[in-house]
């Protein structure tokens, strides 16, 4: 089994891009118990935004742009959607500004088999397959929404969350609103743009409009 670090080595320029976004968006940093990080993983299924250089295939975008190991993408990620359409050839499909990419590990049942990239049942997803021929490659940076599902979220999610992910403020507020009382026990510290805030008061401080750069810290790493 690949470790999180091996599966997702975020490139250096990710930090620069995050910094660029951070100039325009509030940066919310939460320090939580080590076990508490998993509570945020379902949030990644709704999607978060990243900004990367344009002109890339899905494979290049995910591996070179986002630092996902090629063998992880090949073996562990069994279903890839580009704009809601299942992709069989990741090297041919092109990412453009506003694209949404979703990644899933192997899924059960017939639907799981049907949506699998290049699988024996690929014929059954032809109505919702992504067609690649003739796609033009844009220039300049593009904003792409990424969704991480199931085991992929468990394995890549902590890395993305540690670096910081751009999430809609309204989505984040709604997420906090839905949590049980026990959720608030995982919080150890919080700050917005470097200003310490009470963890439980975070939902009231998040701007509803626009994006928030959410970064998570594990309390054990913090103390270490």
């Amino acid at each position, binding site marked *: 089994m690949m470790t999180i670090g091996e599966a997702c080595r975020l490139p250096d320029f990710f930090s620069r891009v995050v910094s660029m976004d951070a100039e325009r968006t509030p940066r919310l940093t939460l320090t939580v118990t080590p076990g508490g990080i998993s509570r945020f993983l379902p949030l990644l299924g709704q999607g978060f935004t990243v900004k990367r250089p344009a002109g890339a295939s899905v494979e290049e975008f995910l591996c070179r742009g986002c630092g996902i190991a090629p063998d992880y993408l090949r073996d562990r990620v069994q279903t890839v959607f580009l704009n809601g359409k299942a992709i069989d050839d990741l090297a041919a499909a092109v990412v453009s500004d506003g694209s949404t990419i979703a990644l899933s590990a192997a899924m059960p049942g017939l639907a799981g088999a049907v949506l699998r990239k290049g699988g024996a049942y690929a014929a*059954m997803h032809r109505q919702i397959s992504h067609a690649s021929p003739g796609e033009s490659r844009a220039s300049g940076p593009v904003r792409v929404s990424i969704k991480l599902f199931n*085991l992929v979220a468990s394995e890549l999610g902590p890395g993305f969350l540690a670096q910081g992910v751009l999430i809609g403020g309204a989505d984040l507020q709604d997420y906090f609103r839905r949590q049980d009382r026990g959720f608030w026990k995982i919080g150890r510290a919080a700050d917005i743009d470097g200003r310490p805030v009470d963890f439980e008061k975070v939902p009231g401080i998040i701007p509803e409009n626009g994006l928030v750069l959410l970064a998570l810290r594990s309390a054990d790493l913090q103390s270490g």
Partner: protein
Amino acid sequence: MDKILRINMGAAGGPQVKSEPIGSYAGLGGRGLTSTIIAKEVPPLCHPLGEDNKLVIAPGLLSGSAAAMSGRISVGCKSPLTGGIKEANAGGMASQMLGRLGIAAIVLEGKPKDGTLYKLSISKDKVDIKPDNSLKMLGNYAVTEKMKAAHGDKVSCISIGQAGEMKLAGASIAFTDMEFRPTRHAGRGGVGAVMGSKGVKVIVVDDTGCAVRSPKEPDKFKEANKSWVAGLRKHAVTGQGLPTYGTNVLTNVINEAGAYPTKNFMWGRFDGCSKISGETQAETENARGGEGSATHGCHRGCVIRCSGTYYDKDGHYLTKQPEYETVWAHGGNCGIDDLDAIAMMDRLDDDFGLDTIEMGAAIAVAMEAGVAKFGDAQAAINLVKEVGKGTPLGRILGSGAGLTGKVFGVERVPVVKNQAMPAYDPRGVQGIGVTYATTTQGADHTAGYAVTANILGVGGKVDALKPEGQVELSRNLQIATAAIDSTGMCLFIAFAILDQPETFQALLDLLGSFGGQKLTGDDVVGLGKSILKMEREFNTKAGFTKEMDRLPDYFKKEKLAPHNVTFKVTDSELDQVYNW
């Protein structure tokens, strides 16, 4: 398993029990046995709730043995929902216990002369059937509590709730799980109504003093079982995805594909899906804690453990972990994004004894008619409660989506052969639409679930771009599924045998060493074909025509957002599914 237990509920002087040798049904189990008995013994034109229909409850071929994953149980009859042959299966403890008792099938026949309700008890030395009207109109949870008080919790129960007693076409049959809760259901097709028509409220199965079934070739069997378990544990789906998230892991993926039926099949994507996804559900269950929270088996001998236990916000047991289809039916299909409300409806369905798919589909149709608003979770809960109370509205809803659509004048009613479609829009995944349209069972995703194409040497050789490819794939999936349904094996094994030839070989070796004969993939295909042929012939004699192998018209006309697709497989292509 060498005997069949027949209970004639209409015998003069009260129900009569007869145990007879399995005879010409030897070598059959699960769906293979239920469908063969129904096809041979039930007049296809009989009324499903009449004396000539039979209810057959049959463990799988390997049930009661030490084979992992072999605890599925099949229930067969002529369906009051579809009017055709029906097989619905479930997990729970009864299958293994019946197997150990040597019972290949329980057959309920005839019809009681009055409204007396009966309790049937089966143990090693005795089969006893007694009137017990104190059970009338009790929910499944109350019934099992009473049985626990009388028999302890080492037995298992097969029971019906209020819906079965009212003979509603959406009624299920409940099987108790490892915790003696009535959470595993043979849900589809109204099998609970047939049990209700026989006047049987509960069957108590006690295998005390019975040994595990012995294989003919013990060493080979032991070795095969070891490889079988190892294969299931090492696969990403059966070893990780399903145990971690349960079947609801599909929600996010199907939604992303734009094939998640939303608000009565109006759209292919639900905005609130991540709030009810398997990932969110597992996190919620783990955070709330409690025994068996997010990873739990539905029967002893399960190594996948895709189930779980759902506790409410205060830590009290509410229900088992709702399955993907249930979360969809009561969730996205009704515009509801509240997991606690969905879990409450799952609990009510289990208690009243209702098929969660049929019930959710019926409520969504009612919502389209304006009976309640899409997204109103409390209204949806109240509608389920109407069924438990037996009000006219509740009886309509409990009779299924088809009837509900007729009563309220709704055109968009997602049924085939009057059975509600499950959680995959056929416009988004057309091959599943082929299965919905053509299976002998009415719209049923599990009828074409066994993804075994490359192993069986079928299905993977078709041209991906031709429409008939969808037909051939669906056909071969239906054949493979019918065969697996006969073994007592859980269908979730399919992924491991799809990807790992050695795991498929282990399954063949398990079956072969148990019965003392060598099995091949061709044998499995042959079994599947013979079952489908029998079921198809029964349906034809019951009045089914090829025109019933169709999706509702609107699937060909209304484009499904976000991909704006319609169902493209033509009628003539659908008619080729059974040409082999």
